[in-house]
């Protein structure tokens, strides 16, 4: 089995500054493996350890994503090897374009059974790339995956949906987007970090990949932070505790908090 972990080398939100108008300034943020992606690394490693599979990291983006630090940061998280597409033609590319390049790279890697990814990236957070990759490849794509284990020829996948947990028998190839809390990722230790420098890295040229031309153009017109909740300041008379509790529960339900 061959498992690809598609991840993003993204600005670290710890270094972000929120401007007075509510927009986020990431210009001084150092980059790191996007915050939700280590969950995908961990799921992939566990699946590989159970099946003897190979785990291949894959990331695409501008040339700046290919640094020794970026390579080691990914390879120290349980990958067997790394594949990169680093080209300034991808600077500022939208999710659809990045998904097309990821899909082309998955095809170039060949014989991939599972693509695992985080739910969304920490900087853009659109959450559409994994399923767009699935669409590009013509594979089954599942979001909100909380568990994946090998089961005979296929996989048993659990999805954490708003209505409850769904358990599915899935045939490969498949693209899975993990929930942010699917597993607690292992922290990379010194041995992992030192070993990372020894693992193979392959850089694919964008021009050599069969990527459909960019047909979609996207311009962000405006962004706004979510509206803050208004304080209701409702007081309940607690003379009768049972009635007050009932009123509190009713008010919370009405506000959508329960």
């Amino acid at each position, binding site marked *: 089995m061959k498992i690809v972990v598609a991840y993003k080398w993204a600005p670290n939100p710890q270094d972000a500054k929120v401007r007075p108008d509510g927009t986020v300034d990431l210009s001084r943020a150092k980059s790191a493996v996007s915050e939700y992606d280590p969950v995908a690394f961990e799921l992939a490693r566990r699946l590989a350890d159970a099946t003897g599979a190979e785990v291949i990291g894959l990331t695409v983006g501008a040339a700046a994503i290919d640094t020794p*630090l970026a390579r*080691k940061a990914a390879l120290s998280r349980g990958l067997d090897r790394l594949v990169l597409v680093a080209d300034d033609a991808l600077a500022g590319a939208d999710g659809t374009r990045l998904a097309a390049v990821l899909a082309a790279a998955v095809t170039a890697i060949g014989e991939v059974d599972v693509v695992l990814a985080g739910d969304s990236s920490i900087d853009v957070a659109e959450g559409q790339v994994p399923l767009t990759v699935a669409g590009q490849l013509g594979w089954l794509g599942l979001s909100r995956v909380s568990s994946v284990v090998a089961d005979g020829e296929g996989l048993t996948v659990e999805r954490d949906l708003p209505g409850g947990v769904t358990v599915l028998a899935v045939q490969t190839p498949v693209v899975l987007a993990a929930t942010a809390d699917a597993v607690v990722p*292992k*922290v*990379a230790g*010194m041995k992992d970090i030192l070993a990372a420098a020894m693992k193979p890295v392959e850089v694919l040229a964008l021009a050599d990949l069969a990527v459909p031309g960019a047909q979609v153009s996207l311009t962000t017109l405006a962004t706004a932070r979510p509206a803050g909740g208004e304080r209701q300041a409702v007081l309940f008379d607690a003379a009768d505790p049972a009635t007050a509790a009932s009123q509190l529960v009713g008010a919370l339900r009405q506000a959508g908090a329960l």
Partner: protein
Amino acid sequence: MDFGLTDEQELLLGSLDELLERECPESYIADLDLTHQPPTSFRKALNEAGFGSLGFPEEFGGTPCDAVTMVLLAERVCRQGLNNGFGLELLQAMDILEFGSDEQKKEILGLLAAGDVPFALGFTEPGAGSDNSAMSTTAVHYDGMVTFNGTKTLITNALQSKYLLLMAKNPEVEDKRKAISMYLVPMHAQGVTTNRLDKIMWNISDACEIFLDDVTIPESCLVGVKGNGFKQLMRNFEFERLVIAATCLGLAQCAFDDAATYAAQRVQFGQPIGNFQLIQLKLTDMAIKLENIRGFVYKTAWMLDNDVPLKSQGALCKRYSAMAAFEVADEAMQVFGGVGVTVGTRVSRLWRDLRGHRFGGGTDEIMVHIAGRQIVKDHS
């Protein structure tokens, strides 16, 4: 001169940050401080992530690590507000790895791997601390056995430890330096009793009196060479002083960050108190002290890594770092005003814990004694 981090150091600190955020939040530390409990679960998490065996030789399952990286990690753990002394486990292991028998090595490394504190250092006595030659605890060897009698005091982590790394003297040897040997004594051995001492700081580490009353065990408990105990103990003192200095740096940085944040938020006379120059003066002087401690600690670690003889450097570094770090915490308390002394504030805990480092691991005054002698010798 390169002040930047290597890729490996940056990634390792990133991993440690993940672990600290997950396993060691302020609520956890505050609870340990309040209930006087050790950070056992955090230590286990550190070990599981491989941090616990950093610096150990590979043949013992460790990962070699330079002193600069070790102090960076120690500083980062303490910047979280935890008075943990990252790296002291390595010191404990080194005492045994260098001088212990195979059986002792196996036992101690096993305990370290499990996240336990393997031993407390039984050195200080009611009549002997900085003056180690006044030690009166005796070790009498006969017929393959050894009997200990005496009292140790202010022994850190005695209640958490399975063993006591005991320093005791042979009463028949006149030369005080050659009379002391090192022993690994089980805390549960017959005749060993402890009395917990209540103290106002270092709540996550217990401190005890230990009474040794005709404690008789096989002399295979001897660590290293009989009569070389003090030399063996001294061997790792330089690194211990450095780790303490890095601990002070992290705790003081934590106090500074809290004070600066508070100054930016606390409004008096219609504006944040950070706008007042008297507060700015405090914050500026605190920042200068932190920079000085950082430079001292990193340079001393670099000297260790490059086999530059430390001479007085370790003592100078420990003395300055412990004193300056406490001054930073003391000024942080002043910035907080009355809020700082209320129970449960982090700054009050940092202030308490930093005060202890002015005597723990060697007093300010003994550091002068060590460094001063060396300075005069170097210029004679």
